[in-house]
């Protein structure tokens, strides 16, 4: 029960933050130079056209009134209308968001799966060759621009070796009719994973490096704990100590760093999507900006914020699950 109550409490806490995000986005969108009416209708529109557009988008009303309208719209799930695509903003987001989530979640899975063994081995063999290799790998990982990794992967694995496709990312649950060369759902999944490999590595490398660093230092600390000494004194085998005693405790800082890494990863998705020409949220916000599509800019920025807030809540709940003191604590 404690965990459920904690989750609800964290969700309630995020409401002011979400309102804050909407405020910032609205303020920034309001500052964008240029007249949206002119962009839509060209430099010399007819007067009645201008008035019709202004009334439709509420541009004839003062800013605070528009803000309240927008806020209540968001609360009821209406993010406005995209001028560029001539479709509701929410519809565009629902079309693109799964692609970005698919990419980001896969990147994190790749990072976790590679980083945890690397960090544990590094901590177990502290200051030995394996540790040095792992530390150099993670140092390079945190220092390399993700989009450059993407470019290098494309040059090597797409252009020279021809192993992976250089662009696009079909979703694994897409309709086989829409995917070239795929007839069954299984083939769609295969095509999708084939496309996913390179962007996943490009986006996940930074996370992998950061998680490795934390996993290593956390495991080093955990292996020096009193209970580990006790277990050793009782003659528990070293591998069992690592698996049963040191590992779980050491994961708490790792979960925290995963939560913090979400911001970098979602931002990095904009770059990765550009490099691999993936039609996700990142490309959507760039298209919105290049076409001065105000409501789409606000909607996508807000949605990036929501994705981050939800991600942080998920990691917080995972933290509370491993360390119940958080959920049952000070309240």
């Amino acid at each position, binding site marked *: 029960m404690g965990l459920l109550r904690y989750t609800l409490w964290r969700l309630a806490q995020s409401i*002011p*933050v979400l309102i*804050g*995000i909407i*405020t*910032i*986005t609205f303020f*920034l*969108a*309001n*500052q*964008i130079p240029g007249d949206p009416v002119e962009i839509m209708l060209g430099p010399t529109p007819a007067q009645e056209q201008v008035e019709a557009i202004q009334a439709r988008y509420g541009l004839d009303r003062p800013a605070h009134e528009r803000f309240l309208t927008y806020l209540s719209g968001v609360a009821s799930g209406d993010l406005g209308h995209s001028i560029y695509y001539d479709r509701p903003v929410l519809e565009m987001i629902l079309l693109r968001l799964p692609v970005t989530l698919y990419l980001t979640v896969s990147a994190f899975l790749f990072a976790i799966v590679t980083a945890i063994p690397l960090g544990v081995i590094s901590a177990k063999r502290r200051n030995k060759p394996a540790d040095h290799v792992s530390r150099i790998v993670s*140092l*390079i990982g*945190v*220092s*390399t*621009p*993700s*989009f*450059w990794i993407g*470019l*290098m992967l*494309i*040059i090597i694995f797409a*252009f020279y070796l021809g192993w992976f496709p250089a662009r696009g990312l079909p979703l694994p649950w897409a309709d086989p009719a829409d995917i070239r060369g795929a007839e069954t759902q299984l083939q769609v999944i295969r095509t999708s994973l084939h496309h996913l490999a390179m962007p996943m590595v490009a986006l996940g490398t930074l996370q992998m490096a950061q998680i490795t660093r934390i996993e290593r230092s956390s495991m080093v*600390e*955990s292996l020096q*704990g*009193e209970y580990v000494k006790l277990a050793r004194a009782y003659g528990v085998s070293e591998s069992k100590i690592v698996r049963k005693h040191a590992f779980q405790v050491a994961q708490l800082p790792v979960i925290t760093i995963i939560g913090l890494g*979400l*911001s*970098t*990863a*979602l*931002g*990095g998705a*904009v*770059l990765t999507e*550009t*490099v691999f020409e993936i039609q996700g949220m990142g490309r959507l*916000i*760039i298209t919105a*900006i290049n076409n001065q599509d105000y409501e789409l*800019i606000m909607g*996508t*920025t807000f949605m*990036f*914020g929501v*994705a*981050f*807030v939800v991600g*942080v809540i998920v990691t917080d709940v995972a933290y509370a699950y491993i360390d119940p003191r958080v959920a049952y604590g000070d309240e």
Partner: protein
Amino acid sequence: MATEPDPQTDTTADGSESGAGEVEARVGLRYTLKQVKRDTTALMGIYTVGFVTLIAVLAAIDYYIFDYAVAEMFWYSPVQDPDEVQRLLPPVGMENQFGAGVIEHPMGTDHRGRDIFVRLFYGTRIAITVGFMATGIGLVGGTLIGAVSGYYGGWIDDVLQRITETIYAIPFLVLVIAFMTAFGRDLTFAMIGVGITSIPVFNRLIRSRVVSIREEDYIEAARAAGVKDRNIILRHIIPNSFAPVLVQATLQIGVSILIVAGLSFLGFGAQPPTPSWGQMLSASRNYMLPAPTFSLWPGMAILVTVIGFNILGDGLQDALDPRINN
């Protein structure tokens, strides 16, 4: 984690009130430098950062004072398109359909026939300026907000923390892009934008230090003696947080360079023809097949620079954290 109190860890940077001579010497710039000199990795960091910064300073002098005249005298102009040079020359030692690379262009030429090495050299100026300026903005902003917030507590703390939390809640690349769309696409706004997004990092660090220092006896004593709040914050609390802030700032410079390179790659930041690494990578995207090395160099430059700041930051952390030394 440890159940027993460890006398060494309790006196990391605020050793001045404990009175023990050995601990007292653990603060300040001189001690830091002494520790860093002992650490090979940190020294490598210092040399790399020093080398890159020196190049940036030379490039800046040539840009601001001589308008690239020095570059033209010894090499080529980093901004003007030459007439006779072939485009997309490969670097020395490589051959492809564009012919052998010539020694005059050790790294080859770009899509407009400009020398890549010269453009990399002058691109250093942008990377280093951006790294230091953006981190400086974040450092000053975050330190002030964190110190005020932690020192006063109460509603001031609540309001300031909710604001920084909200800034933090928008993925920072997205926030900077939205910020630059609103105010301007050039480098100044890139620096301010990245600076603003790093405010929460320093805010969190300083605030937690302040909250723990606030209750110390010497702060009580200063307050009782009638020292103004502003002076307590500026003279006692902020200097006492020197060590962790220095480490964080060094690492943050690397992060800022990476973010601004990403922004330039997307077309936000230094505008052509000003040479910048991110923009060179962006241009190289269209020539990945005929001239793959064009994409290689700017990335390597970013990598080496950021590694320099990261190992310097790690080295400083090892030098300043007595727990690791003992």
